[in-house]
């Protein structure tokens, strides 16, 4: 939503190829998150960042890596995409961590063939 964008919005790729999704925020929020949303599972946390170069794993981090070199950008990389990583990916931001609300981006629909 306002203040947080994701790119690309849609991507189709083939199994085994690397994929990078970008999240960009203009609110100077410290915390940023990557989630995936799948039918029947709800939103699940992949990785999160609590500052520049500070990241940690979420509950479904296998097969994913992240980087944050600037406050405003948080990248999610699938080193070698698999069909099980077909999903909708959401980025979120928060000013002060899990005690306060997170604001979500518009999402990226990724299809791995």
């Amino acid at each position: 939503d306002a203040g947080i964008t994701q790119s690309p919005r849609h991507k189709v790729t083939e199994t085994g190829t690397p994929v990078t999704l970008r999240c960009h925020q203009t609110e100077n929020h410290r915390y940023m998150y990557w989630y995936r949303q799948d039918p029947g599972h709800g939103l699940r946390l992949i990785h999160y960042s609590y500052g520049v170069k500070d990241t940690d794993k979420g509950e479904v981090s296998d097969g994913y890596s992240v980087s944050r070199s600037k406050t405003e950008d948080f990248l999610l990389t699938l080193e070698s995409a698999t069909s099980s990583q077909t999903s909708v990916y959401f980025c979120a931001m928060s000013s002060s961590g899990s005690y306060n609300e997170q604001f979500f981006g518009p999402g990226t629909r990724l299809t791995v063939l």
Partner: protein
Amino acid sequence: EDQVTQSPEALRLQEGESSSLNCSYTVSGLRGLFWYRQDPGKGPEFLFTLYSAGEEKEKERLKATLTKKESFLHITAPKPEDSATYLCAVTTNFGNEKLTFGTGTRLTIIP
């Protein structure tokens, strides 16, 4: 393991017909409970945060309440534009940054 269960999975109401959505949770040390609205093809939109049992928050036709085991989202005299999926999520004192989501209630308001 932290668990969040939302019911019903889907709800169809006539315009003006009030109802409630339920979010029950089993966690160790609730830090906060969040309600979000999600429209098709969009990211979740923040609605409310509740921190302690007995707390209530209101916004237009929506009111969220919290007990020690569950939260309700009451919708009064809904309009078609209230149609969306409503998501509940919790954070705990022991889960670092993990936000545990329920699978949502898909609400449809019929004109």
